[in-house]
C-alpha cells in the first residue's frame, strides 16, 4: 500500500556565498519562509519547519499557501530531491512528480533523444521506452518533429513533448505542482484527460494549487502551509472557506 509518513521534517537552505548586512534587513516579510542570519550575516532560509503529515492511500491532498510558503519545496522533498535535514520522511510506492515540466530537456538533442534521456532518468529501461515510444509521439502530436532538435520547437511543442514524456508511467503517488498553463486549446483537453486518468489510478495525489474549483473537485483533504509550517490540515471544505476569504 502506498503511504507517505512525515515527522518533524525540516528543510532549510544556507546561502554560504551571500552576506546580508544588518542595515539591509527588513525583519518582517510577507512572503517566503523565515530567514535567519548567522553572526557574519549568512542567511538561512527556513523553507520547511517541523512538518508532520501522515498520508495514506486514497488521500487526495490539496496543498494551499501563499507564494514561498513551501508548497513546491514540500513536493520536492517528498519526491526525494531534497533530503530532510532533520526529521524523517518515509514513502512507499512509485512516486511520479509533475513539479517541473521539462527537467533536463536539451535543446541541441532531438525530441527522440530527449525522450530516452528523460525516460532513463525516471528509471525506465530501454525496452520499456521502446515499447512506449509510438504512444508518446502519437499523444504529443509531434510526428516528424520528434526527429528534429528541440531548439526548433515552439514553446507549445516543447510542452507537448515534456508532458507526454513526464506521464509515460502510472505512479502510485502523484505530485502535481501548479504549472499547467497550456496555450494550445486542443492539447489542453488532451492534457486534462490524461491527467484525470493518472489521478484516478494513483493511490495518493498531492496537488498544489491556487484554484478553489480545481482543489474541491480533485481533493478530499486540504493542507495549508504558511512560512514553511502546516497551519491547517483537514478533510472539511471549511478550510477552503477560511483560506479563500482570509
Amino acid at each position, binding site marked *: 500500500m502506498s503511504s507517505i509518513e512525515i515527522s518533524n521534517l525540516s528543510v532549510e537552505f*544556507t546561502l554560504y556565498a551571500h552576506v546580508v548586512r544588518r542595515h539591509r534587513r527588513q525583519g518582517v516579510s510577507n512572503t517566503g519562509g523565515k530567514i535567519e542570519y548567522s553572526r557574519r550575516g549568512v542567511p538561512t532560509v527556513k523553507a520547511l519547519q517541523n512538518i508532520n503529515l501522515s498520508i495514506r492511500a486514497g488521500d487526495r491532498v490539496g496543498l494551499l499557501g501563499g507564494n514561498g510558503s513551501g508548497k513546491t519545496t514540500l513536493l520536492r522533498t517528498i519526491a526525494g530531491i*531534497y533530503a530532510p535535514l532533520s526529521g524523517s520522511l518515509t514513502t512507499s510506492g512509485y512516486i511520479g*512528480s509533475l*513539479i517541473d515540466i521539462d527537467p*533536463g530537456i536539451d535543446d541541441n538533442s532531438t525530441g527522440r533523444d530527449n525522450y530516452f*534521456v528523460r525516460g*532513463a*532518468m*525516471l528509471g525506465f529501461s530501454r525496452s520499456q521506452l521502446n515499447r512506449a515510444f509510438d504512444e508518446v509521439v502519437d499523444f504529443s502530436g509531434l510526428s516528424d518533429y520528434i526527429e528534429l532538435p528541440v531548439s526548433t520547437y515552439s514553446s507549445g511543442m516543447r510542452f507537448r513533448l515534456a508532458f507526454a514524456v513526464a506521464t509515460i*508511467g502510472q505512479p502510485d503517488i502523484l505530485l502535481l505542482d501548479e504549472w499547467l498553463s497550456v496555450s494550445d486549446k486542443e492539447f489542453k483537453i488532451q492534457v486534462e484527460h490524461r491527467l484525470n486518468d493518472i489521478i484516478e489510478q494513483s493511490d495518493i495525489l498531492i496537488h498544489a494549487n491556487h484554484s478553489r474549483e480545481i482543489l474541491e473537485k480533485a481533493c478530499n483533504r486540504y493542507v495549508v502551509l504558511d512560512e514553511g509550517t502546516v497551519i491547517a490540515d483537514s478533510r472539511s471544505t471549511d478550510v477552503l472557506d477560511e483560506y479563500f476569504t482570509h
Partner: protein
Amino acid sequence: MKPELSDSARVLNVAVVLGLRDVKNTYNRSKLGFFRLFLQTTLSIVIIVPIFATIQERDLREFLGYVASGLMIWSFISDSTIDASSAYIRNTRSIRQVAIPRITFALQGIIRNAVMLAISLSLFPLIWIISGTVPNWNTLLLPFGLLLTVLCIANLAIIVATIGARSRDFTTIVAAVMRVLFFLSPIIWVTERIRGDIAHFILGLNPFYHLLQIVRLPLLGEAPTNINWLLAVVAVLISGAIAYRVFKKFDHKIAYWV
C-alpha cells in the same frame, strides 16, 4: 507502466545515455565528425613528437607510440577530472528537478571521455604500422590497464565533483593542478633521463604515472611491472574508499549546494 530499473542500474543507465548524448552532440553539426578528434590528436602528435624526440635524443619512430599513447591517456585523465569539477554545477537544473543519485552526473563525464579515449585509441593500428611495432601477447593486458584507469578516474571524479559543488573556485584550481601534473608525469618526456633514486621514488609516488604505464606499455607491446599493477590497484582501492565515503556522506546534500 512502472519503472523496472533498480537505483544502481538507473544511475549507470542514465550516465551512459547522457554520456553518449554528449559525444553525439559534440560531433553533431560537424562535417568532420569523429575525424575532428583524430585531427586534434594527430596535430599534437605531429608537432610534439619531432621536437621532443630531438631534445631527448630519441628515435623518432619509437617515440611516436610513446607520446601518442601518453597524450591519449592523459586527455582522458585530465578532461575527466576537469569536467567532473563542474559536473554538478552544470547540471543544477536536473539536480533540482529529478530524484536521482547525483553521482550520475559525475559518471556521465567519465562515460563521455571513455568513449572519446576509445575513439582516439582506434588510431593505434596506424601508429603500429608507422612505428614498426608489432602488437604481441603483452598487448592483451590493455583491457585490464584501461579498466583500472577508468575505475580510478571515476572514483576521483566523484570526489572532485562533490568538492566542486561546494566551492566554485575549485574548477580553476583543478585545471591548474592538472596542467602541473601534465608536466610532472612522463607523457612527453622519458623516465630514463631521470638520474637518482630519490627522483625515481618521487616519480613512483605519482599514481598517474602507474595508470599511464599500465595502459601505455601494453600498447607498445611491453609488460608493465608488478609495482605498476600493484600501485594502480592500490590507487583504485584508496580512491574507491574515499569516493564511497564522499558519496554516502554528501550525495544527498548536493541539491542544497548547487
